[in-house]
């Protein structure tokens, strides 16, 4: 059983003018520990597909199995609960809670999971250490650079011990050097913690490091190429 299985997945937005078919009959299997990039031009359906996989949106057709569970059939609250325990999110604009420190941002997810204070503090510190921010645990987002904020976002995504991490254009707001360092870190987490990453991206640096590149065009899969893992770590 694959970690994620998409069967004939469709998403159509019924706009006032004409229905927009954002995702058309996509079928994919994503295995554990894959480092997958979903690429394509703007409007190709990358973000919609990511939203569907992440349970942030409901498909209009087909099914999405995550660890054997069809998440498209889950009720709203169960879906939120599923996301909390199974999916880590990294957003383009970092989206940290501005009034919380880096440590509190990471801890917050574990609080929602009901983890005890001592355990969540310990894990938050470990994760921030592993993303290279051991010395900035008490900094607020506004006191951190874009790259550092995205590292906190990655630590937050991992805090819940998810099955996989969805990263929507995580390097789009970062300069070349910072983006490279962030990708190095994610690749390391992928290797060391066997964490599955799924990116939607335009960034050739991400594409270069991905094990697998799924290209979308007009909402449908145009190509699905597995790359040599040797590309990892090269920048």
């Amino acid at each position, binding site marked *: 059983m694959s970690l994620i299985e998409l069967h004939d997945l469709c998403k159509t937005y019924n706009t006032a003018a004409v229905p927009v078919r954002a995702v058309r009959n996509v079928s994919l299997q994503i295995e554990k520990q894959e480092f997958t990039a979903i690429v394509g031009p703007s409007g190709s359906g990358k973000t919609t597909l990511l939203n569907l996989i992440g349970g*942030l949106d409901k498909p209009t057709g087909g099914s999405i199995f995550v660890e054997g569970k069809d998440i498209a059939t889950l009720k*709203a*609250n169960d879906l939120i609960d599923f996301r*909390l325990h199974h999916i880590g999110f990294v957003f383009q604009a970092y*989206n940290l809670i*501005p*009034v919380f420190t880096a440590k509190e941002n990471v801890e917050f*997810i574990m*609080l*929602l999971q009901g983890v005890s204070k001592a355990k969540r503090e310990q894990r938050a510190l470990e994760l921030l250490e592993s993303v290279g921010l051991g010395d900035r645990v008490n900094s607020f987002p506004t006191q951190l650079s874009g790259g550092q904020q995205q590292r906190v976002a990655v630590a937050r995504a991992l805090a819940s011990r998810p099955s996989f991490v969805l990263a929507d254009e995580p390097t789009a707001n970062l300069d070349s050097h910072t983006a490279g360092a962030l990708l190095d870190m994610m690749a390391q987490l992928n290797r060391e913690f066997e964490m599955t990453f799924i990116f939607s991206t335009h960034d050739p640096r991400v594409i270069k490091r991905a094990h697998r590149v799924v290209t979308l065009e007009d909402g449908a899969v145009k190509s699905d190429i597995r790359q040599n893992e040797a590309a990892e770590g090269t920048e």
Partner: protein
Amino acid sequence: MILSLAWKNIWRNKKRSLIIIVATALGLWGSLLSGAIWMGWGESMVDTAISRDLAHIQIHKPGYAQNKEIINYIPDGFQILKETQNLPGIAAVSGRTLVEGMAASPTSTFGVKIVGIVPAQAKTVTDIYKRLIEGEYFPDGGGRNPVVIGRKLADRLGLKLHSKIVLSFQDLDGSLNYAAGKIVGIYKTESSLFDQSNVFMRQADLFRLLNTKPLIHEIAIRAESARIMPQVYAAVKANYPQLAVHSWKELAPEVAYTSAAMEAFTYIFIGIILFALLFGITNTMLMAVIERFRELGVLIAVGMKKGRVFTMILLETILLSITGGVAGIVIGAISIVYLAHAGIDLTALASGMETFGASTVLRPFLPLDMYIALPIMIVITASLSAVLPAWKVIHIQPSEAIRTY
């Protein structure tokens, strides 16, 4: 941590939060102070009426209120007076002999109630002796038939201190008696009506003039405190089922009603202020929610259930309102305590105040239960204010909210 997040969120836009906190504080301060002034006024009316003549409880012979003839005295009145003195919760008692009559001067005549008292006893129940503006309260050696009258009556009859006053009244046989008295004291209370119609004499003098054995028509009782008055009243009523026992509320329902109305007005006024604030708080929270639309969407996306987000917004609203509310209550309490101590001098409005039987020095007062009720009212207001913003939050679609900039 959610409480901490809610508290920190309030201070993300300090200026906006401070505006609503200051508005809440000022609104509550104003309503508390004005409410305390109204209630102080109501309390003043009650206190002055009790201290002037009503006392807490009165005992009469049944039917006395309808027929105030001299023959309607309390059977074994002095024995009952002695007994009530020893009942628990009673601070003092005073027996009164009441005779309806006329007071005359060389120029005028006026209908009055002649109140026969034992001065030392009366002093323990009422405070007419404190209201003397001329002369003394039944001094030793005050001459034959010393009389204490009110300023208003003295003015109407054209009499002064040490003037002679002629009192006429019926005795037990129905015969008309005339007696000359000497004015030894002139009092002035908050009620000009009382001042023009009550003449005080020593009981012994009245008995002599009436040519009768000692008798009393009224036993005035002062309880140890207003708080235990209802229990004392119940005990006295149970002890003397054959007599008419009345509390001050029954004797002067208009005073009790006015006092209760003042309290009701205070609650209504505070309610109106909070209702107005409700819209301000709702607006502030709506702005806060709209500004944080993406962030709230992210919270839902990463696994915060909508119920928890709803709670967070509710907590933010309550904390915002309570902060303003507590500030308003504290400032209000300080103002009330200060003004209660210093008093508000309303001498300029003395004639109007006397019509209502209230003191010209007003001491704002707010009962403790109102300080307890207010935070509850604020929390209810805040909860209502949070409904619309929180409703917006629970309808956020995270996939859309995340892409909002």
